[in-house]
């Protein structure tokens, strides 16, 4: 299933929405589609629906829905996150471009977790699937007599 989330925060927000949906599932009855529209964006709704279809879950059955949501939460929590340390606080616009740079380099969309670390001076560090890479100015020797 193709990832739609740009950041780890977006994943957690989506999980919170789905959990609210889970609480209201018995109240909504036949008006389930209407409630879905009120809680989730179109992209999120499509993502959820495609998940149910892929997992062969009947979302109209409350018990199956609850079970499916439980599996979805586990799946989302375990999606690999790319943690990026930056030496500055990027604007929203610049952040969008940074996502693009990364997505151009990856085979699929990778959710990011951005952290601020001024000691890096410039450049960035990446941590993905347990591997850490440092491309910061701090890593490079500004002074060396060798």
């Amino acid at each position, binding site marked *: 299933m193709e990832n739609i989330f740009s950041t780890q925060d977006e994943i957690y927000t989506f999980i919170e929405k789905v959990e609210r949906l889970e609480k209201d599932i018995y109240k909504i009855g036949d008006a389930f589609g209407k409630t879905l529209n009120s809680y989730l964006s179109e992209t999120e709704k499509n993502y959820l629906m495609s998940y149910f279809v892929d997992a062969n879950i009947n979302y109209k059955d409350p018990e199956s829905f609850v079970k499916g949501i439980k599996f979805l939460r586990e799946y989302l929590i375990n999606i690999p996150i*790319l943690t990026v340390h*930056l*030496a*500055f606080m*990027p*604007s929203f616009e*610049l952040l969008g*471009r*940074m996502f693009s*740079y*990364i997505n151009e*380099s*990856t*085979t699929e969309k*990778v959710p990011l977790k951005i952290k601020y670390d*001024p*000691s890096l*001076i*410039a*450049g*960035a560090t*990446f941590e*993905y699937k347990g*591997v850490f*890479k440092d*491309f*910061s*100015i*701090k890593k490079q*020797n*500004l*002074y*060396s*007599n*060798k």
Partner: protein
Amino acid sequence: MNNNFLPLLITSFDLLILILILFYWGFLLLKEKKLNARKRKINEEYTEIVKKAHDKANRIIEKSEYISKALEESANQTFLEVLDGLKSSSTNFYSRIEQKYEQQNLDVINQVSHKNSKDLEEFSKIYRQNLSVMQEDMKKTINKELESSVEEVKKYKQEKLDNIDSMLHEKINALATKLLPDFISISDHEEMFKKAVEEAKKEGLFN
């Protein structure tokens, strides 16, 4: 008559017993007197024998003392004579021996001197050789120690330089962290981020 006879008989019997007792008592007294006399005689004889024995012993002791003294004097005299003889003969003997060995000693000393001279020469030669070897060894040891010391000094110098370098590195980085961000523009940051992503891709981080 019969009435007087029995008491008379009893009285006579009593008298007879009394006479017998007196007689026996007298006999015992006489016997004691004889025994005392004999005892005195024995004592006198014993005293006499002891006195005689004592006199005889004294005489023997006196006699033996005299003999002993005579013998001692005689022995002393004989010993002195023998000693004189020995002294005289030993002096002669020693004198002869002295003469004999004096010559022999002279010969030995001459031989030894000659031998010593050769030995000394040999020793001197060996000593010079050993000294040369020792000097060589010492020279090698000193050179080795010197090389080791030079290496240690080099190592120490390098360690100190590394420490200074590390310290400078830290200081410069700290200064750069404080000052550089003010001189780096957002577009520079973006450019460096792009390069970092490219590097990460090259290193296979996103595979």
